[in-house]
Protein backbone atom coordinates (compact mmCIF):
# COMPACT_ATOMS: atom_id res chain seq x y z
CA UNK A 1 0.00 0.00 0.00
CA UNK A 2 2.93 2.31 0.62
CA UNK A 3 4.05 1.87 -2.97
CA UNK A 4 0.67 3.17 -4.18
CA UNK A 5 1.45 6.57 -2.82
CA UNK A 6 4.87 6.59 -4.41
CA UNK A 7 3.75 4.94 -7.65
CA UNK A 8 4.48 8.12 -9.61
CA UNK A 9 8.09 8.09 -8.39
CA UNK A 10 8.33 4.37 -9.05
CA UNK A 11 7.06 4.48 -12.59
CA UNK A 12 9.77 6.98 -13.44
CA UNK A 13 12.46 4.49 -12.51
CA UNK A 14 10.81 1.06 -12.65
CA UNK A 15 12.39 0.19 -15.96
CA UNK A 16 15.91 1.22 -15.16
CA UNK A 17 17.86 -1.56 -13.54
CA UNK A 18 20.93 0.57 -13.16
CA UNK A 19 20.52 2.99 -10.29
CA UNK A 20 22.07 6.41 -10.40
CA UNK A 21 22.74 8.63 -7.44
CA UNK A 22 20.48 11.23 -9.06
CA UNK A 23 17.60 8.75 -9.14
CA UNK A 24 18.07 8.00 -5.47
CA UNK A 25 18.09 11.71 -4.67
CA UNK A 26 14.96 12.34 -6.71
CA UNK A 27 13.22 9.49 -5.02
CA UNK A 28 14.23 10.69 -1.57
CA UNK A 29 12.92 14.12 -2.46
CA UNK A 30 9.48 12.55 -2.96
CA UNK A 31 9.78 10.93 0.44
CA UNK A 32 10.86 14.26 1.93
CA UNK A 33 7.65 15.87 0.66
CA UNK A 34 5.57 13.09 2.14
CA UNK A 35 7.25 13.42 5.54
CA UNK A 36 6.96 17.22 5.58
CA UNK A 37 3.30 16.95 4.62
CA UNK A 38 2.86 14.77 7.68
CA UNK A 39 4.11 17.73 9.77
CA UNK A 40 7.41 16.09 10.72
CA UNK A 41 10.01 18.71 11.66
CA UNK A 42 12.05 20.10 8.76
CA UNK A 43 15.47 19.51 10.36
CA UNK A 44 14.50 16.07 11.65
CA UNK A 45 13.41 15.04 8.16
CA UNK A 46 16.63 16.42 6.67
CA UNK A 47 18.88 14.48 9.07
CA UNK A 48 16.78 11.34 8.75
CA UNK A 49 16.95 11.26 4.95
CA UNK A 50 20.67 11.98 5.04
CA UNK A 51 21.11 8.78 7.12
CA UNK A 52 18.79 6.81 4.85
CA UNK A 53 20.66 8.00 1.76
CA UNK A 54 24.04 7.01 3.22
CA UNK A 55 22.64 3.61 4.09
CA UNK A 56 21.15 3.22 0.60
CA UNK A 57 24.39 4.15 -1.13
CA UNK A 58 26.32 1.65 0.96
CA UNK A 59 24.15 -1.22 -0.21
CA UNK A 60 24.43 -2.48 -3.74
CA UNK A 61 20.91 -1.67 -4.85
CA UNK A 62 21.56 -2.92 -8.37
CA UNK A 63 21.59 -6.43 -6.93
CA UNK A 64 18.04 -5.95 -5.61
CA UNK A 65 15.13 -7.11 -7.73
CA UNK A 66 13.20 -3.86 -7.25
CA UNK A 67 15.64 -1.28 -5.89
CA UNK A 68 13.13 1.43 -5.18
CA UNK A 69 10.75 -0.82 -3.32
CA UNK A 70 13.76 -1.78 -1.25
CA UNK A 71 14.59 1.87 -0.67
CA UNK A 72 11.04 2.59 0.43
CA UNK A 73 11.17 -0.35 2.81
CA UNK A 74 14.43 0.99 4.21
CA UNK A 75 12.78 4.34 4.94
CA UNK A 76 9.86 2.60 6.64
CA UNK A 77 12.10 0.36 8.74
CA UNK A 78 14.29 3.27 9.79
CA UNK A 79 11.20 5.24 10.76
CA UNK A 80 9.84 2.37 12.85
CA UNK A 81 13.23 2.04 14.51
CA UNK A 82 13.27 5.73 15.45
CA UNK A 83 9.69 5.65 16.74
CA UNK A 84 9.95 2.40 18.58
CA UNK A 85 11.54 1.06 21.67
CA UNK A 86 9.12 2.80 23.98
CA UNK A 87 7.15 1.09 26.69
CA UNK A 88 3.66 2.24 27.68
CA UNK A 89 4.49 2.17 31.35
CA UNK A 90 4.38 4.84 34.03
CA UNK A 91 6.57 4.98 37.14
CA UNK A 92 4.51 5.18 40.32
CA UNK A 93 4.22 8.55 42.00
CA UNK A 94 2.99 11.95 40.84
CA UNK A 95 2.47 12.19 37.09
CA UNK A 96 2.50 15.76 35.80
CA UNK A 97 0.65 16.60 32.56
CA UNK A 98 1.91 19.59 30.57
CA UNK A 99 1.49 21.16 27.15
CA UNK A 100 0.00 23.90 25.00
CA UNK A 101 -3.61 25.02 25.29
CA UNK A 102 -6.33 22.63 24.19
CA UNK A 103 -4.14 19.61 23.42
CA UNK A 104 -6.18 17.23 25.58
CA UNK A 105 -4.40 17.17 28.96
CA UNK A 106 -7.49 17.13 31.18
CA UNK A 107 -9.27 14.51 29.09
CA UNK A 108 -6.10 12.38 28.94
CA UNK A 109 -5.86 12.41 32.73
CA UNK A 110 -9.39 11.03 32.89
CA UNK A 111 -8.48 8.31 30.42
CA UNK A 112 -5.24 7.35 32.14
CA UNK A 113 -6.90 7.36 35.55
CA UNK A 114 -9.40 4.83 34.23
CA UNK A 115 -6.66 2.82 32.48
CA UNK A 116 -4.58 2.57 35.67
CA UNK A 117 -7.56 1.89 37.92
CA UNK A 118 -8.67 -0.95 35.62
CA UNK A 119 -5.19 -2.39 36.03
CA UNK A 120 -5.73 -2.48 39.78
CA UNK A 121 -3.74 0.55 40.86
CA UNK A 122 -4.86 3.10 43.44
CA UNK A 123 -5.29 6.39 41.59
CA UNK A 124 -6.20 9.97 42.51
CA UNK A 125 -6.39 13.12 40.38
CA UNK A 126 -6.09 16.83 41.05
CA UNK A 127 -5.96 20.06 39.06
CA UNK A 128 -3.62 23.04 39.38
CA UNK A 129 -5.45 24.86 36.56
CA UNK A 130 -6.63 28.00 38.31
CA UNK A 131 -6.90 29.82 35.02
CA UNK A 132 -9.28 28.19 32.59
CA UNK A 133 -13.01 28.66 33.34
CA UNK A 134 -14.48 25.46 34.80
CA UNK A 135 -11.20 23.53 34.31
CA UNK A 136 -11.32 22.00 37.77
CA UNK A 137 -14.99 21.12 37.37
CA UNK A 138 -14.13 19.39 34.08
CA UNK A 139 -11.62 17.11 35.81
CA UNK A 140 -13.89 16.58 38.77
CA UNK A 141 -16.72 15.43 36.48
CA UNK A 142 -14.41 12.99 34.68
CA UNK A 143 -13.18 11.63 38.02
CA UNK A 144 -16.75 11.09 39.17
CA UNK A 145 -17.54 9.14 36.01
CA UNK A 146 -14.79 6.63 36.72
CA UNK A 147 -15.09 6.78 40.51
CA UNK A 148 -11.56 7.97 41.16
CA UNK A 149 -10.92 10.40 44.04
CA UNK A 150 -10.58 14.02 42.95
CA UNK A 151 -8.62 16.16 45.40
CA UNK A 152 -10.16 19.57 45.80
CA UNK A 153 -8.74 22.34 47.94
CA UNK A 154 -10.17 25.75 48.77
CA UNK A 155 -10.66 28.77 46.52
CA UNK A 156 -7.89 31.27 46.03
CA UNK A 157 -4.93 28.91 46.21
CA UNK A 158 -2.12 29.23 43.71
CA UNK A 159 -1.22 26.45 41.30
CA UNK A 160 1.90 25.72 43.34
CA UNK A 161 0.00 25.53 46.62
CA UNK A 162 -2.52 23.11 45.14
CA UNK A 163 0.26 20.93 43.77
CA UNK A 164 1.90 20.65 47.19
CA UNK A 165 -1.37 19.92 48.96
CA UNK A 166 -2.34 17.29 46.38
CA UNK A 167 1.06 15.61 46.73
CA UNK A 168 0.71 15.52 50.52
CA UNK A 169 -2.81 14.10 50.39
CA UNK A 170 -1.80 11.46 47.84
CA UNK A 171 0.99 10.33 50.16
CA UNK A 172 -1.40 10.28 53.10
CA UNK A 173 -3.91 8.17 51.16
CA UNK A 174 -1.17 5.86 49.95
CA UNK A 175 -2.09 6.12 46.25
CA UNK A 176 0.07 4.54 43.57
CA UNK A 177 -0.51 7.35 41.08
CA UNK A 178 -1.47 10.99 41.52
CA UNK A 179 -2.32 12.44 38.11
CA UNK A 180 -1.80 16.19 38.27
CA UNK A 181 -3.35 18.55 35.69
CA UNK A 182 -1.82 21.88 34.74
CA UNK A 183 -3.18 24.80 32.74
CA UNK A 184 -2.36 24.88 29.05
CA UNK A 185 0.38 27.43 28.44
CA UNK A 186 2.63 28.89 25.78
CA UNK A 187 6.29 27.86 25.84
CA UNK A 188 7.11 31.53 25.27
CA UNK A 189 5.22 32.66 28.37
CA UNK A 190 8.12 33.02 30.79
CA UNK A 191 5.99 33.51 33.86
CA UNK A 192 3.89 30.42 33.25
CA UNK A 193 6.89 28.30 32.31
CA UNK A 194 8.49 29.40 35.57
CA UNK A 195 5.30 28.36 37.42
CA UNK A 196 5.55 24.94 35.81
CA UNK A 197 9.16 24.62 36.78
CA UNK A 198 8.35 25.46 40.40
CA UNK A 199 5.51 22.90 40.46
CA UNK A 200 7.93 20.28 39.19
CA UNK A 201 10.50 21.15 41.87
CA UNK A 202 7.85 21.01 44.56
CA UNK A 203 6.36 17.61 43.70
CA UNK A 204 9.34 15.78 42.15
CA UNK A 205 7.15 13.90 39.72
CA UNK A 206 7.83 10.31 38.74
CA UNK A 207 6.74 11.23 35.22
CA UNK A 208 6.29 14.47 33.29
CA UNK A 209 4.08 13.78 30.28
CA UNK A 210 3.94 16.18 27.36
CA UNK A 211 0.48 16.08 25.84
CA UNK A 212 0.76 16.85 22.12
CA UNK A 213 -2.00 17.22 19.58
CA UNK A 214 -1.38 14.83 16.65
CA UNK A 215 -2.17 17.66 14.23
CA UNK A 216 0.54 20.03 15.46
CA UNK A 217 2.59 21.69 12.73
CA UNK A 218 6.20 22.72 12.28
CA UNK A 219 6.49 24.49 15.63
CA UNK A 220 5.74 21.24 17.51
CA UNK A 221 9.36 20.28 18.14
CA UNK A 222 10.57 23.75 19.07
CA UNK A 223 7.68 24.06 21.52
CA UNK A 224 8.37 20.66 23.10
CA UNK A 225 12.06 21.52 23.37
CA UNK A 226 11.29 24.49 25.60
CA UNK A 227 9.04 22.40 27.83
CA UNK A 228 11.74 19.73 27.93
CA UNK A 229 14.44 22.22 28.90
CA UNK A 230 12.21 23.76 31.56
CA UNK A 231 10.78 20.67 33.25
CA UNK A 232 12.37 17.58 31.74
CA UNK A 233 9.83 15.45 29.89
CA UNK A 234 9.81 11.72 30.57
CA UNK A 235 7.25 10.85 27.94
CA UNK A 236 4.57 12.11 25.59
CA UNK A 237 0.93 11.38 24.86
CA UNK A 238 -0.24 11.94 21.30
CA UNK A 239 -3.92 12.95 21.26
CA UNK A 240 -6.67 13.14 18.60
CA UNK A 241 -5.15 10.31 16.59
CA UNK A 242 -8.70 9.25 15.72
CA UNK A 243 -8.68 12.00 13.10
CA UNK A 244 -6.74 12.02 9.82
CA UNK A 245 -3.73 13.98 11.01
CA UNK A 246 -0.60 12.11 9.95
CA UNK A 247 1.10 12.65 13.30
CA UNK A 248 4.58 13.71 12.18
CA UNK A 249 5.05 15.32 15.60
CA UNK A 250 5.61 11.80 17.00
CA UNK A 251 8.63 11.38 14.75
CA UNK A 252 10.00 14.80 15.69
CA UNK A 253 9.66 14.28 19.45
CA UNK A 254 11.17 10.83 19.45
CA UNK A 255 13.94 11.56 16.98
CA UNK A 256 15.18 14.91 18.25
CA UNK A 257 14.39 14.75 21.97
CA UNK A 258 14.39 11.01 22.53
CA UNK A 259 11.06 11.30 24.29
CA UNK A 260 9.09 8.03 24.28
CA UNK A 261 5.49 8.26 23.14
CA UNK A 262 3.78 6.37 25.94
CA UNK A 263 0.11 6.57 24.97
CA UNK A 264 -2.13 7.62 22.12
CA UNK A 265 -5.53 9.30 22.50
CA UNK A 266 -8.04 7.92 20.00
CA UNK A 267 -11.31 9.56 20.90
CA UNK A 268 -13.27 11.71 23.29
CA UNK A 269 -14.48 9.00 25.62
CA UNK A 270 -12.66 7.82 28.72
CA UNK A 271 -11.86 4.42 27.22
CA UNK A 272 -10.28 6.00 24.13
CA UNK A 273 -6.61 5.55 24.97
CA UNK A 274 -4.12 3.03 23.57
CA UNK A 275 -0.47 2.13 23.90
CA UNK A 276 1.79 3.48 21.16
CA UNK A 277 2.37 1.18 18.15
CA UNK A 278 5.42 2.45 16.22
CA UNK A 279 4.72 0.47 13.05
CA UNK A 280 1.16 1.81 12.77
CA UNK A 281 2.30 5.39 13.32
CA UNK A 282 5.17 4.97 10.83
CA UNK A 283 2.73 3.90 8.11
CA UNK A 284 0.48 6.81 8.91
CA UNK A 285 3.33 9.33 8.81
CA UNK A 286 4.42 8.02 5.43
CA UNK A 287 0.88 8.45 4.21
Amino acid at each position, binding site marked *: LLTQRFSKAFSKVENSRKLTEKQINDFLREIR*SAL*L*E*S*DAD*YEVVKDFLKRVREKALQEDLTKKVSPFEHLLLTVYEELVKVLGGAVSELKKGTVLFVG*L*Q*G*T*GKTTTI*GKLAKYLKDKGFKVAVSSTDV*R*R*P*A*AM*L*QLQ*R*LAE*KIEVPYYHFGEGLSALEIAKKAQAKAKEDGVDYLLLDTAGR*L*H*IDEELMEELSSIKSAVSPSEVLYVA*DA*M*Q*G*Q*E*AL*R*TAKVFHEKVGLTGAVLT*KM*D*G*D*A*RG*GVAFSLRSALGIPIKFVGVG*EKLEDIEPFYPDRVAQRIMG
Partner: protein
Amino acid sequence: IFAGRKVDEELLEELEERLIRADIGVKTAGQLVEELRKEAIRKNIKTWEGLLPVLREKLLSYIGGCKGELKEGKVYLFLGVNGSGKTTTIGKLAHRFKSQGKKVLLCAGDTFRSAAIEQLQVWAQRSGADIVYKEEGADPASVVYQALEKAQKENYDVVLIDTAGRLHTKEPLIRELRKIKQVVQKFYPEEPTETLLVLDATIGQNSLSQAKVFKEAVDVSGIVLTKLDGSAKGGAVVPICTELKIPIKLLGVGEGLEDLQEFEPKTFVEELTS
Protein backbone atom coordinates in the same frame (compact mmCIF):
# COMPACT_ATOMS: atom_id res chain seq x y z
CA ILE B 1 16.61 37.40 8.62
CA PHE B 2 18.47 37.17 5.32
CA ALA B 3 19.66 40.75 5.59
CA GLY B 4 22.43 41.66 3.21
CA ARG B 5 22.54 38.27 1.50
CA LYS B 6 22.63 37.78 -2.22
CA VAL B 7 19.97 35.86 -4.06
CA ASP B 8 21.30 32.40 -4.90
CA GLU B 9 20.13 28.79 -4.73
CA GLU B 10 21.21 28.52 -1.12
CA LEU B 11 19.09 31.53 -0.11
CA LEU B 12 16.07 30.21 -2.01
CA GLU B 13 16.40 26.84 -0.32
CA GLU B 14 16.58 28.47 3.11
CA LEU B 15 13.59 30.61 2.22
CA GLU B 16 11.63 27.52 1.25
CA GLU B 17 12.53 26.03 4.61
CA ARG B 18 11.25 29.13 6.42
CA LEU B 19 7.97 29.00 4.52
CA ILE B 20 7.52 25.29 5.28
CA ARG B 21 8.30 26.02 8.92
CA ALA B 22 5.47 28.58 8.90
CA ASP B 23 3.13 25.69 7.97
CA ILE B 24 2.48 27.01 4.47
CA GLY B 25 2.98 23.46 3.16
CA VAL B 26 5.50 21.82 0.85
CA LYS B 27 3.52 22.41 -2.35
CA THR B 28 2.72 26.06 -1.73
CA ALA B 29 6.23 26.83 -0.50
CA GLY B 30 7.76 25.17 -3.54
CA GLN B 31 5.41 27.02 -5.86
CA LEU B 32 6.17 30.34 -4.23
CA VAL B 33 9.94 29.85 -4.35
CA GLU B 34 9.74 28.80 -8.01
CA GLU B 35 7.82 31.98 -8.85
CA LEU B 36 10.40 34.03 -6.95
CA ARG B 37 13.26 32.35 -8.77
CA LYS B 38 11.72 33.27 -12.13
CA GLU B 39 10.98 36.81 -10.97
CA ALA B 40 14.54 37.27 -9.66
CA ILE B 41 15.96 36.28 -13.05
CA ARG B 42 13.49 38.43 -15.00
CA LYS B 43 13.96 41.54 -12.89
CA ASN B 44 17.66 40.87 -12.20
CA ILE B 45 17.19 40.92 -8.41
CA LYS B 46 20.52 40.29 -6.70
CA THR B 47 19.87 40.87 -3.00
CA TRP B 48 17.44 39.72 -0.32
CA GLU B 49 16.39 43.35 0.19
CA GLY B 50 15.24 43.38 -3.42
CA LEU B 51 13.49 40.02 -3.15
CA LEU B 52 11.57 40.54 0.09
CA PRO B 53 9.02 43.01 -1.32
CA VAL B 54 8.39 40.65 -4.25
CA LEU B 55 7.85 37.76 -1.82
CA ARG B 56 5.45 39.82 0.28
CA GLU B 57 3.57 40.96 -2.80
CA LYS B 58 3.21 37.36 -3.97
CA LEU B 59 1.96 36.19 -0.56
CA LEU B 60 -0.43 39.13 -0.50
CA SER B 61 -1.78 38.06 -3.88
CA TYR B 62 -2.33 34.58 -2.41
CA ILE B 63 -4.27 35.67 0.67
CA GLY B 64 -5.34 39.24 0.02
CA GLY B 65 -8.63 37.96 -1.32
CA CYS B 66 -9.40 36.30 1.99
CA LYS B 67 -9.80 39.46 4.01
CA GLY B 68 -13.33 39.39 5.33
CA GLU B 69 -15.36 41.64 7.58
CA LEU B 70 -17.60 39.95 10.11
CA LYS B 71 -21.10 40.38 8.70
CA GLU B 72 -23.78 42.18 10.70
CA GLY B 73 -26.69 39.99 11.60
CA LYS B 74 -28.44 37.93 14.22
CA VAL B 75 -26.97 34.44 14.49
CA TYR B 76 -23.33 33.34 14.58
CA LEU B 77 -22.57 29.62 14.53
CA PHE B 78 -19.16 28.37 15.75
CA LEU B 79 -17.66 25.03 14.79
CA GLY B 80 -14.31 23.30 14.65
CA VAL B 81 -12.22 20.43 15.91
CA ASN B 82 -11.65 19.71 19.58
CA GLY B 83 -9.72 22.29 21.54
CA SER B 84 -9.40 24.86 18.71
CA GLY B 85 -10.76 27.73 20.84
CA LYS B 86 -14.47 27.97 19.96
CA THR B 87 -15.84 28.60 23.45
CA THR B 88 -13.17 31.17 24.31
CA THR B 89 -13.69 32.96 20.98
CA ILE B 90 -17.42 33.23 21.69
CA GLY B 91 -16.59 34.87 25.03
CA LYS B 92 -14.39 37.42 23.26
CA LEU B 93 -16.94 38.17 20.53
CA ALA B 94 -19.73 38.47 23.11
CA HIS B 95 -17.64 41.07 24.90
CA ARG B 96 -17.12 42.96 21.64
CA PHE B 97 -20.84 42.95 20.79
CA LYS B 98 -21.73 44.01 24.35
CA SER B 99 -19.35 46.95 24.13
CA GLN B 100 -21.18 47.93 20.93
CA GLY B 101 -24.33 48.16 23.04
CA LYS B 102 -25.90 44.98 21.67
CA LYS B 103 -28.11 42.57 23.60
CA VAL B 104 -26.18 39.28 23.43
CA LEU B 105 -27.38 35.72 23.99
CA LEU B 106 -25.05 32.72 24.18
CA CYS B 107 -26.24 29.21 23.33
CA ALA B 108 -24.54 26.29 25.10
CA GLY B 109 -24.69 23.93 22.14
CA ASP B 110 -21.93 21.66 23.49
CA THR B 111 -23.96 19.20 25.49
CA PHE B 112 -21.34 16.50 25.33
CA ARG B 113 -18.04 17.50 26.92
CA SER B 114 -17.60 17.65 30.70
CA ALA B 115 -18.18 21.15 32.09
CA ALA B 116 -18.58 22.68 28.62
CA ILE B 117 -21.77 24.42 29.72
CA GLU B 118 -20.19 25.77 32.92
CA GLN B 119 -17.20 27.03 30.92
CA LEU B 120 -19.51 29.03 28.63
CA GLN B 121 -21.47 30.28 31.65
CA VAL B 122 -18.29 31.90 32.97
CA TRP B 123 -17.81 33.66 29.65
CA ALA B 124 -21.41 34.85 29.78
CA GLN B 125 -20.72 36.36 33.20
CA ARG B 126 -17.44 37.91 32.09
CA SER B 127 -18.92 39.48 28.96
CA GLY B 128 -22.29 40.42 30.43
CA ALA B 129 -24.17 38.25 27.94
CA ASP B 130 -27.09 35.98 28.80
CA ILE B 131 -27.04 32.25 28.21
CA VAL B 132 -29.40 29.44 27.28
CA TYR B 133 -28.46 25.92 28.28
CA LYS B 134 -29.96 22.53 28.99
CA GLU B 135 -28.73 19.49 30.87
CA GLU B 136 -25.57 17.66 29.78
CA GLY B 137 -26.48 15.08 27.15
CA ALA B 138 -29.44 17.04 25.77
CA ASP B 139 -29.90 17.18 21.99
CA PRO B 140 -27.85 20.20 20.83
CA ALA B 141 -30.47 21.06 18.21
CA SER B 142 -33.06 21.47 20.96
CA VAL B 143 -30.84 23.88 22.92
CA VAL B 144 -30.33 25.91 19.74
CA TYR B 145 -34.07 26.01 19.14
CA GLN B 146 -34.68 27.12 22.71
CA ALA B 147 -32.08 29.90 22.37
CA LEU B 148 -33.59 31.17 19.12
CA GLU B 149 -37.05 31.22 20.69
CA LYS B 150 -35.76 33.28 23.62
CA ALA B 151 -33.84 35.59 21.26
CA GLN B 152 -36.96 36.27 19.26
CA LYS B 153 -39.27 36.66 22.24
CA GLU B 154 -36.94 38.94 24.20
CA ASN B 155 -35.47 40.88 21.26
CA TYR B 156 -31.82 39.91 21.43
CA ASP B 157 -29.57 41.54 18.84
CA VAL B 158 -27.20 38.60 18.45
CA VAL B 159 -27.07 34.89 19.29
CA LEU B 160 -23.69 33.15 19.48
CA ILE B 161 -23.96 29.37 19.20
CA ASP B 162 -21.26 27.16 20.72
CA THR B 163 -20.96 23.60 19.45
CA ALA B 164 -18.96 20.62 20.68
CA GLY B 165 -15.52 20.09 19.21
CA ARG B 166 -15.63 17.41 16.54
CA LEU B 167 -13.09 15.82 14.24
CA HIS B 168 -14.09 16.37 10.62
CA THR B 169 -13.58 12.66 9.96
CA LYS B 170 -16.54 11.68 12.14
CA GLU B 171 -19.55 11.43 9.84
CA PRO B 172 -22.25 11.25 12.58
CA LEU B 173 -20.86 14.39 14.22
CA ILE B 174 -20.80 16.22 10.87
CA ARG B 175 -24.43 15.20 10.39
CA GLU B 176 -25.24 16.58 13.83
CA LEU B 177 -23.63 19.88 12.85
CA ARG B 178 -25.69 20.05 9.65
CA LYS B 179 -28.82 19.45 11.70
CA ILE B 180 -27.89 22.30 14.06
CA LYS B 181 -27.45 24.68 11.12
CA GLN B 182 -30.77 23.55 9.63
CA VAL B 183 -32.55 24.40 12.91
CA VAL B 184 -31.20 27.95 12.61
CA GLN B 185 -32.17 28.21 8.93
CA LYS B 186 -35.70 26.94 9.61
CA PHE B 187 -36.14 29.52 12.38
CA TYR B 188 -34.66 32.46 10.48
CA PRO B 189 -34.28 31.88 6.73
CA GLU B 190 -31.64 34.63 6.52
CA GLU B 191 -29.53 33.10 9.26
CA PRO B 192 -26.95 32.13 10.35
CA THR B 193 -25.19 35.35 9.35
CA GLU B 194 -21.86 33.62 9.84
CA THR B 195 -20.87 29.95 9.97
CA LEU B 196 -17.45 30.30 11.54
CA LEU B 197 -14.76 27.63 11.44
CA VAL B 198 -12.38 28.05 14.37
CA LEU B 199 -8.87 26.94 13.38
CA ASP B 200 -5.92 26.57 15.73
CA ALA B 201 -2.79 28.27 14.34
CA THR B 202 -0.55 25.60 15.91
CA ILE B 203 -2.04 22.97 13.61
CA GLY B 204 -0.14 21.98 10.49
CA GLN B 205 -1.34 20.55 7.20
CA ASN B 206 -4.44 18.99 8.75
CA SER B 207 -6.01 22.48 8.74
CA LEU B 208 -6.59 22.18 5.01
CA SER B 209 -8.38 18.87 5.42
CA GLN B 210 -10.53 20.37 8.20
CA ALA B 211 -11.45 23.40 6.12
CA LYS B 212 -12.36 21.26 3.10
CA VAL B 213 -14.64 18.91 5.01
CA PHE B 214 -16.38 21.55 7.09
CA LYS B 215 -16.89 23.82 4.09
CA GLU B 216 -18.41 20.94 2.15
CA ALA B 217 -20.63 19.94 5.07
CA VAL B 218 -21.99 23.26 6.38
CA ASP B 219 -20.74 25.91 3.93
CA VAL B 220 -18.33 27.79 6.20
CA SER B 221 -18.59 31.57 5.70
CA GLY B 222 -15.47 32.54 7.58
CA ILE B 223 -12.47 31.43 9.61
CA VAL B 224 -11.32 32.47 13.05
CA LEU B 225 -7.61 31.72 13.43
CA THR B 226 -6.70 31.28 17.11
CA LYS B 227 -3.57 31.07 19.28
CA LEU B 228 -1.53 33.43 17.10
CA ASP B 229 0.03 34.76 20.30
CA GLY B 230 2.11 31.58 20.29
CA SER B 231 5.07 30.94 18.01
CA ALA B 232 3.11 29.25 15.23
CA LYS B 233 2.49 31.48 12.21
CA GLY B 234 -0.73 29.89 10.97
CA GLY B 235 0.62 29.61 7.42
CA ALA B 236 -1.87 26.83 6.63
CA VAL B 237 -4.42 29.56 5.87
CA VAL B 238 -2.44 30.37 2.70
CA PRO B 239 -3.31 27.12 0.86
CA ILE B 240 -6.78 27.22 2.47
CA CYS B 241 -7.31 30.63 0.92
CA THR B 242 -5.95 29.77 -2.51
CA GLU B 243 -7.87 26.49 -2.72
CA LEU B 244 -11.10 27.26 -0.89
CA LYS B 245 -11.30 31.07 -0.83
CA ILE B 246 -12.78 31.11 2.68
CA PRO B 247 -12.42 34.61 4.19
CA ILE B 248 -10.52 34.99 7.45
CA LYS B 249 -12.68 37.12 9.70
CA LEU B 250 -10.99 37.20 13.10
CA LEU B 251 -7.77 36.33 14.90
CA GLY B 252 -7.45 34.97 18.44
CA VAL B 253 -4.36 36.36 20.16
CA GLY B 254 -4.71 35.28 23.76
CA GLU B 255 -6.96 33.84 26.43
CA GLY B 256 -8.59 37.07 27.64
CA LEU B 257 -11.81 38.92 26.72
CA GLU B 258 -9.98 41.55 24.66
CA ASP B 259 -7.73 39.16 22.75
CA LEU B 260 -9.56 39.33 19.45
CA GLN B 261 -8.18 41.10 16.36
CA GLU B 262 -9.11 41.75 12.78
CA PHE B 263 -7.29 39.87 10.05
CA GLU B 264 -5.02 42.28 8.20
CA PRO B 265 -3.43 40.54 5.20
CA LYS B 266 -0.47 42.96 5.07
CA THR B 267 0.36 42.49 8.75
CA PHE B 268 -0.12 38.74 8.45
CA VAL B 269 2.27 38.56 5.51
CA GLU B 270 4.85 40.64 7.39
CA GLU B 271 4.62 38.31 10.38
CA LEU B 272 4.97 35.32 8.09
CA THR B 273 8.14 36.70 6.50
CA SER B 274 9.73 38.41 9.52
